[in-house]
């Protein structure tokens, strides 16, 4: 009788177990969570979702109002400033909400449980923000106008040069770069159980400063645009942009089984 066959089958079973353990190890979930902890975590997740959605709804409303304000030749300074202030407050509210949730999680979980959760978050983090319209910073008035838009507006070569220079802003690039850097730093801070609260708060402030400056840059660009173009040219440009980029519909995350209400 061939004695090598059972050996091979054993080897096969061992190999299968190895592959299974690697695969399940890669997707392991934090264990040893008590029912009380689970309830508290559910409540944190529920509140996080609800509050985030409320703030995002407000952000979307304010963004659309800002877009409408920018479509008018006669810029309503007060309206623009008020809307920017609303957007800025909502941005800060989102940052603070995340910070508060981080504190809460550390009160519910032990260090080892939190570390496992943090590992899960890193594993499932993906490579981009979820639930966003792409591209992130390219609203209809944030993009440099292309040839078709410029031709529709009937601008001269000199005007076109000035407009394109206006959009090629090193300050904006620098701000986005800083924003990304601080965000990365904050995320890495949030992955540690011993959260340095002072550093986290300082990073939140820095991120929010960048956000506000980006908003102000967009307002300044709108003002400059009106100093380069005539009213007729501006309106033609606006109509061409509106034709190509219709007013956005508010985005909503599709409902999930865990959602209530």
């Amino acid at each position, binding site marked *: 009788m061939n004695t090598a066959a059972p050996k091979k089958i054993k080897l096969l079973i061992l190999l299968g177990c190895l592959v299974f353990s690697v695969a399940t190890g890669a997707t392991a979930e934090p264990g040893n969570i008590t029912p009380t902890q689970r309830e508290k975590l559910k409540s944190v997740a529920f509140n996080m979702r609800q509050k985030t959605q409320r703030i995002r709804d407000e952000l979307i409303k304010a963004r659309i109002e800002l877009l409408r304000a920018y479509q008018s030749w006669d810029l309503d300074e007060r309206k623009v400033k008020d809307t920017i202030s609303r957007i800025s407050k909502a941005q800060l509210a989102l940052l603070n909400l995340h910070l508060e*949730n981080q504190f809460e999680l550390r009160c519910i979980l032990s260090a080892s449980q939190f570390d496992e959760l943090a590992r899960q978050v890193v594993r499932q983090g993906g490579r981009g923000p979820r639930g966003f319209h792409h591209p992130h910073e390219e609203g209809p008035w944030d993009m440099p106008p292309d040839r078709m838009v410029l031709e529709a507006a009937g601008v001269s070569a000199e005007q076109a040069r000035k407009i394109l220079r206006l959009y090629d802003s090193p300050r904006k690039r620098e701000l986005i770069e800083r924003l990304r850097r601080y965000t990365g730093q904050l995320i890495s801070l949030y992955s540690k159980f011993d959260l340095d609260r002072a550093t986290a708060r300082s990073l939140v402030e820095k991120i929010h400063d960048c956000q506000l400056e980006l908003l102000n840059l967009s307002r300044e660009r709108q003002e400059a645009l009106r100093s380069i173009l005539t009213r007729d040219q501006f309106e033609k440009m606006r109509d061409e942009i509106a034709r190509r980029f219709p007013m956005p519909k508010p985005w909503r995350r599709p409902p999930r089984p865990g959602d209530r209400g």
Partner: protein
Amino acid sequence: MGRASGPEARVIRDHLKTCKKCEALLREEMAFAARLSAVPMVEPANDVWALVRAKTKPRRLSISAWLGRTRSVDALAKRLAAAVAVIGVAAVTLYSVTLNQPDTGQEPVATSGNSVVSVKWSDDPLGGHREVLVECIDKM
């Protein structure tokens, strides 16, 4: 000449009336074409391309065929072990390439230029992190 269009054919016909040399050449060409058409068509005894295609046709990969070629239990076990190992490595690689990407806060540069933004990345830079966190808590 039969293929030439109206004015072109007329020019050729007029020329042929006056040029004996060209008329003789045309007559010779027409006689040659008539002789050629009388020759029977010969089919090749063996289509070389069909043979080449048959020899170079890729073999279909079938697991049952692959396993079926083995004669002994020993070889079968070896092959099964190899198949499991390959599937396992592929699954782990796929997992690490597609799912196991750490969120560094560095967002990919968007390439499409025709989407309208209502809430921008800069409005909620930690949004992606928050959503993943909530999902992970849901799974706990």
